[in-house]
């Protein structure tokens, strides 16, 4: 059971990191106090993980079945990659770290299936596009039909505020549904945990990250959403949540941060302004290549190290 520590550590860092896009704008805009947002988000992560989250476990299982040791090494390598990259200020995607780590272990053990990998690779490219479309359509509609929002200041702000609270809950639900497999997927694959228990432990670990460390992340790191006003932030979070939710239903874990980058670009397309600079896009590309590579090398190194010790 001690091997789960690596997974819990991963879940904790995922929860802390995801908070910036999950409810950062909601807290910063004053729509909700931090603790209200953090508690609500933790509850909805749990609901998402327990209701839909187990769907994504199958995808990790399809890449390659894990042993207890390989599951531990995958989680450890992915967790270390996330921590290392966060410390270096580089973009972090837990999904890509886990996939890279599974590949690293799988290639040395000779147990990697190509078909699910193709599906996952395609989803990485489609995630920002999904975010873009999911933000472009509602924002375009809002620009075409501005009367959809009340014009009176107090009512308008009230509607935006309620909207921010609702999308915060929805995006937390979608994060739990989609990303819980990143935390405990390999342990479910190894047979250590049942899908239900995996979803529960994964969601609790994410919740722990949200409750214990996300305030600092929101205050220091921020996200691509920081420059957006309340309405566009609301739409970007909604788009992120829709993207995560759709992929959760399909059963593919994807990166929340890349969905949000796509959403911000979608809003920029409607506004006719560039909302994302070249460096952010480079970071997305790095997320596709760099994160899984580092995690893969690290997990392969850990496997070799374990073999030497054994």
């Amino acid at each position: 059971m001690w091997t789960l520590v690596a997974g819990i550590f991963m879940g904790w860092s995922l929860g802390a990191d995801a908070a910036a896009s999950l409810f950062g704008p909601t807290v910063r805009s004053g729509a909700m106090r931090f603790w209200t947002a953090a508690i609500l988000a933790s509850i909805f992560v749990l609901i998402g993980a327990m209701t839909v989250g187990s769907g994504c476990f199958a995808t990790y299982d399809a890449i390659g079945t894990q042993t207890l040791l390989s599951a531990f090494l995958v989680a450890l390598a992915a967790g270390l990659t996330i921590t290392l990259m966060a410390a270096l200020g580089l973009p972090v995607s837990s999904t890509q770290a886990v996939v890279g780590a599974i590949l690293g272990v799988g290639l040395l053990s000779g147990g990697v299936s190509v078909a699910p990998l193709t599906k996952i690779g395609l989803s990485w490219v489609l995630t920002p596009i999904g975010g873009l479309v999911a933000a472009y359509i509602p924002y375009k509609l809002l620009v075409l039909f501005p009367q959809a929002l009340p014009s009176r200041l107090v009512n308008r702000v009230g509607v935006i505020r309620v909207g921010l609270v609702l999308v915060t809950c929805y995006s937390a639900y979608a994060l739990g549904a989609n990303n819980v497999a990143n935390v405990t997927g390999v342990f479910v694959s190894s047979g250590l945990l049942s899908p239900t228990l995996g979803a529960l432990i994964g969601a609790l670990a994410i919740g722990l990250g949200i409750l214990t460390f996300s305030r600092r992340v929101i205050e220091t790191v921020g996200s691509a959403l920081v420059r957006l006003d309340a309405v566009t932030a609301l739409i970007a979070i909604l788009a992120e949540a829709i993207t995560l939710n759709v992929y959760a239903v399909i059963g593919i874990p994807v990166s929340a941060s890349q969905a949000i980058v796509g959403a911000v670009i979608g809003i920029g397309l409607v506004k006719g302004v560039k909302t994302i600079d070249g460096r952010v896009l480079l970071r997305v590309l790095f997320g596709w290549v760099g994160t899984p590579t580092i995690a893969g090398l690290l997990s392969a190194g850990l496997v070799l190290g374990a073999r030497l010790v054994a």
Partner: protein
Amino acid sequence: MLGFWKRGEQVNDLILRHLAHVRQAMSLFGDATRAYFVEKDVEKARRLMVETHKAESLADDVRREVEKTLVQGALLAPSRRQLLLIVDGIDTLANAAQGTLHYLVNQSVDVPPEVEPFALKILEESETLFEDVDCGVRSLLAGDAKTSLDCAERIDRHESAVDRFDAEATRTLFALNIELARKMHVRGYFAVLALISDRAEDLADQVALVAAERAL
């Protein structure tokens, strides 16, 4: 959850109440200035100056109430900041009106008859200008960005008119054969009188900015 909506409504009502007190201060300021120049009744002007001060104090109280309600979490952070700036802007008009009366009445400014009409013209412009301030703020709260922008534009025009009258007053004043000390004293009065429109122009800029930001 709907508590914040109630606080939002409270802020809306408080801003309108604040506006009403500033309107009262501006109206008393107009009466006091006319009592001084037209009726030549300094005592009446002094009495009205005290009334203006009271209206300004009431406006201050309401402004503080607005600040308190906003700090308690009404609306969203960006709207709070914008509304605070607007309420502060409205408040400066009452302050400027009060300051102008203090200068005129307490220092018994001896305005030459050749220059007096300019003071009354500036007063008229300031009064009309306040109507546009009122219209701009009410439209903003009602969500009518276009009317807000129109009002802000009219405030700018009134401010330009005040500048012209002020410049003409200065030229006329310094062409007169009176003591330089008196000229400087009167010039000081015109400077504070024109301050009302300057502050209204700042407020108009703020109103225009908020109205423009409302566009998606």
